């Protein structure tokens, strides 16, 4: 579904990687590996179309992502290093607003259930800025459930999470893959999920 050929990325005057190529089929996941500064974040941003690569092509269902535009973005979910949650809103509102921007209406019950699943019980109505580092991260990750995307691109999704949350997240990714989804992850820790292919930068 996603196929990358001859990809090269340049930051400043530094060539981070070149001639990168891989394919990703439904049910597969990819572990992007590399030491600090190897270019993992840069690669992910190129894959979602935020910063154009210096060379090479990225295709989704056979068409270049630049041409697909919205059709690609509808199937995509990217969560980066950033918080990407509004600190003034509560977790509940954050999820609702994000869904509304995708053009979907969230069911109150389901949303609450999702937040509880992510261990935010009792914090649904507290503005995000009062939450701890790990709790903020959980609010962001709750979007994995509320927005049904096919391709998940997650930059270090396990940072700041405690052991229970890590288990829960990897189970979630497992379900997603079993349902025919795809995922591309970076992480410096060993992954708690099986069967991933590795891409070394």
């Amino acid at each position, binding site marked *: 579904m996603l196929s990358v050929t001859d990809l090269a990325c340049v930051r400043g005057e530094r060539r981070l990687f070149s001639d990168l190529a891989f394919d990703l089929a439904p049910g597969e996941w990819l572990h992007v590996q590399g030491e600090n500064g190897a270019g993992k974040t840069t690669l992910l941003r190129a894959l*979602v*179309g*935020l*910063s*154009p690569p210096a060379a090479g092509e990225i295709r989704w269902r056979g068409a270049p992502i630049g041409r697909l535009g*919205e059709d690609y*973005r*509808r199937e*995509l979910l*990217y969560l*980066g*290093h*950033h*918080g*990407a*949650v*509004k*600190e*003034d*809103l509560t977790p509940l*509102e954050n999820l609702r*607003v*994000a869904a*509304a*921007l*995708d*053009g979907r209406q969230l069911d109150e019950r389901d949303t609450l259930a999702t937040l509880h699943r992510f261990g935010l019980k009792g914090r649904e109505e507290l*503005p995000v800025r009062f939450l701890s580092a790990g709790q903020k991260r959980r609010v962001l990750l709750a979007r994995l459930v509320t927005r049904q995307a096919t391709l998940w691109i997650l930059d270090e999704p396990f940072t700041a999470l405690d052991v229970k949350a890590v288990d829960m997240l990897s189970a979630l990714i497992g379900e997603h893959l079993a349902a025919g989804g795809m995922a591309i992850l970076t992480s410096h820790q060993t992954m708690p999920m099986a069967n991933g292919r590795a891409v070394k930068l």
Partner: protein
Amino acid sequence: MSALLAIVRRDLLLAMRRKSEMLTALFFFIIVVSLFPLGIGPEPVLLRKIAPGVLWVAALLATMLSLNRLFAADHADGTLEQLALSPTPLGLLVTGKIAAHWLTSGLPLVLLAPVLGVQFDLDASALGILVGALLLGTPLLSLIGAIGAALTLGVRGGGVLLSLLVLPLYVPALIFGAGAVEAHISGLGASGHLSLLAALLALAVFFAPWATTAALRVAME
């Protein structure tokens, strides 16, 4: 279309959460206007003469100060990236954000202006023209300002750079806006100024969201 409404609603919700921010923009407007009599002296004739200019300059500055909350917060916390990656075209979302900005920062100025105008001894008909001109002019300020806000996004020292980019572009709005009231006071009639202001607004409605979107894409690269 529903996404447009969603973003307007979201930005209004955020503005409500930080109500103090909105109110302080208003108070800034009031204070700047009130500083002038202190700096210049209390002569009523002089004050009446400078009233439209002072009110408009204060409106310009108040709008400008509220501009950097237009995209900066979304940029810093990564939600802007998420907007760019959402299935709705970015241009539409940008239009929504600009509309919300006007509702929270331009409209209150318009509503407040007559009260301040009274302080400068303007009469009722002049106040009417003032409100009309602001009603046409403040959306224009939001639209032009959005371009500047997008261009200075993520740039070090953006706040002041923004004003440097935007204030010169505000000159026509200032001239026609303040000019309308002055022309009315001096008996020349304000319709010419007002229709020029409307024409500028129409131009900006088409052009500004496009330029803003382009600038945002550049900022996120």
